[in-house]
């Protein structure tokens, strides 16, 4: 097991290098120049040239790439072009907020999605099943920027139950976390439901009933564990959607997280911040995927890593 983890982490270095290279190229390929963006339409040609030099953007692309990789090895991506603080620090300061939001949404999504899926699967084609299925489809389909604004209008403006924007107490977390979680709830509910309905046809489920087990016990001990592996896989994969959603949700709810930082950095061609943010996202993907893999061994006794 330890050997397997070590090997996976070693491969990860190549994944990181690949991600770093892709983002290095991508930010430079999109039109728009950071120095120009910083000085706006009032900057003179001479000022733009001077600023490009100060930012090191006038160096040959190869040199820039080598400097960049050398910096990345030391976790030093230079100053944010716009925020006048180191890019790593800028992202670091905002990661906890995004982490809190994503983790809350993930927890909310699993604790709600799983039981709802079971509820729907208990009586296929019942009213409860249809209700849950339609609701989860809606949860999956409604764009979260629209949903977020609707939540603000209803719960903050009309009902005044919750604050509309910013970070603070738990009350500030509710609306953004629920908005973000709904997508996951939709995906999980449908997955758990279809998984359980399928498993219900299996021989071992019939045997379990035959030996006199109650329905709750059959589902809990025999059906659910067999559905969990695809569920865990999807939860891991949903991390990408959660982070993409966080970018929008953070903007709508003025949540001071790294997603908004990334969007602003892209809009302003703040290369260092974009690079750091993408690196951190890549790392979180690698770690989550590793965790998902590890969980297979725990959930399914047949899976062994050598």
């Amino acid at each position: 097991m330890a050997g397997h983890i070590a090997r996976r982490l070693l491969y990860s270095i190549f994944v990181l290098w690949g991600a770093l290279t892709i983002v290095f190229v991508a930010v430079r390929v999109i039109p728009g120049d950071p120095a120009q963006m910083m000085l706006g339409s009032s900057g003179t040609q001479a000022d733009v040239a001077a600023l490009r030099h100060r930012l090191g953007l006038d160096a040959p692309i190869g040199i820039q790439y080598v400097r960049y990789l050398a910096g990345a090895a030391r976790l030093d991506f230079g100053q944010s072009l716009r925020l006048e603080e180191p890019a790593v620090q800028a992202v670091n300061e905002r990661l906890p907020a995004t982490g809190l939001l994503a983790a809350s949404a993930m927890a909310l999504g699993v604790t709600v999605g799983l039981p709802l899926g079971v509820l729907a699967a208990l009586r296929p084609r019942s009213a409860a099943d249809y209700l849950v299925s339609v609701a989860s489809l809606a949860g999956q389909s409604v764009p979260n920027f629209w949903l977020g604004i609707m939540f603000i209008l209803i719960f903050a403006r009309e009902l005044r139950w919750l604050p509309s924007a910013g970070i603070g107490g738990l009350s500030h977390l509710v609306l953004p976390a629920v908005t973000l979680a709904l997508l996951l709830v939709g995906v999980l509910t449908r997955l758990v439901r279809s998984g359980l309905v399928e498993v219900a046809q299996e021989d071992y489920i019939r045997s379990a009933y035959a030996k006199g087990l109650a329905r709750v016990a059959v589902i809990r001990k025999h059906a659910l564990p067999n559905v969990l592996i695809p569920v865990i896989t999807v939860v891991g994969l949903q991390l990408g959607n959660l982070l993409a959603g966080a970018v929008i949700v953070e903007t709508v709810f003025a949540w001071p997280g790294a997603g908004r930082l990334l969007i602003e950095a892209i809009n302003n061609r703040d290369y260092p911040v974009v690079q750091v943010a993408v690196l951190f996202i890549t790392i979180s993907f690698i770690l989550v995927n590793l965790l998902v893999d590890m969980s297979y061994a725990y959930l399914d006794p047949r899976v062994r890593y050598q």
Partner: protein
Amino acid sequence: MTDDTRATRGRLTRRQVLGGAIATAGAAAGGILLGTPEARGAAAAAAGDLRVALPAEIVSLDPMGASAAEESVRVVAAHIFDSLVVRNTRTREFLPALATKWTTPDPNTWEFTIRSGVKFHDGTPLTARDVKVSLDRMIGQPGPLAPLWTAVAGTDAPSDTTVRVRTKTPLGTMLSNLSLTSILPADKMNAAGFFNQPIGSGPFRVSSYRPQGDLALAANTSYWGPAPGVKTLTFRDIPEVASRVTALITGEIDLTYALPPDQVASLQSNNAIRIQSTPSYRYYFIWMNIKHEPFTDVRVRQAMTYAVDVPTILNTLLKGSAQRMTAPIPSTVFGYAPQRLYTYDPGKAKQLLTEAGHPNGFDATMIWNPDSGPQDREIAQALFSYWNAVGARIKDGQAERGQWLTKLLALDWDMDFQTNIVTTGDADFVLRRLYTTSANRMGYSSPVVDHVLDLAAQSANQETRKVYYGQVCEIIWDDAVGLYPFELTATYVSRKAVQGFVPTPSSPVFTAVTVQR
């Protein structure tokens, strides 16, 4: 949106509300009850606390940095720092601030007497040396405001209370430039991290700040000027308009501005909200690239102007949030002179196009970037259809901001549609920065304009400068270098608890504001 789809969305909403309620209950059952009821913010905030949401994020607290020209940076800088002079936006006069008086012994020398007894927030006295070093930093830094200072030869501080600025050629905009220049503590301003929690001499000191996040200020109790009206001043960062309006309605913030017209309209019936408007320094314009066919011909440019029904667009799209522009610069700006209006006349536009050799019209592209101003998308569509009606088939060259800026500066366009802010409130900032031959921003070149603008820039006599800028306004207007349809209104919305706020064309000041809860 049709009624049908609205109804569908309504149903979806209720379903989602239900889902949200279940989700909430499932995960955070007890937690919500413990959550502070900040939705009732108005009651929770202490009296004497003013919370403002600016229209854009506060990128940096460095008043001379790369973002120095951004509105939000200017607003907060004016509260943390002092400048030598301040402009009265009503009378357009310059009033003493850190400088108690100033003289010009000769046209190339300005001598300022620095107010004595002024202290920075950390208690150290502010002297002429701080002023000199701050000016040097402003002039030497390649920032967006540096071009204002190219005429300066040097600065010195012969005594603790005297600062002298020498110029290569007379600098008519000296006072307007100085009103944008913050004075920083000479010995500290270059320390690493200084601008995370900068020290100034202004009416408020920085309590806490995170770039792109909230900024908390506290009243400077030993301020040399009139004491601030509130104990704390907080700038909340709320990027999404709907959230910002909601925060105002629920009392989470006390004041905001630069809302889209439809949002302002929705607040009009709210008894707890006050709406204050004043003409701003911001305006819409459309440039035509004078080096690109067919805009090389003044008749084509005039035809484009006659083709557009400005009052109709104003009344349908920008009601209450703009007024018709009567010069190439807004009426609020020093140097403004009203011009003869181009009346809507599509027949005349067609005739001019025919005379210019385009009886069957022509094709061109107009670049613009979304979110540059209120209703910009709708205005662009209206423009296209007006022009199309006279045979000018203008293609939509909408581009993302970075891409648009690159094209704009490279003169890689036929037409350009955007807003602009006269940051200094002085005609020089627009006319000389944009319309001279050497500026080469839309290919316009007029030796007379170049000459008169130089004369104006080098004159220290404000009345003379005004006459010069009036002449330039007229030439640019008659040459139809661009269309100048609307000057925007600055609309401030605040809760009625906010007292004593005076709306300004740009960069609102909150020092005198009090809050009565």
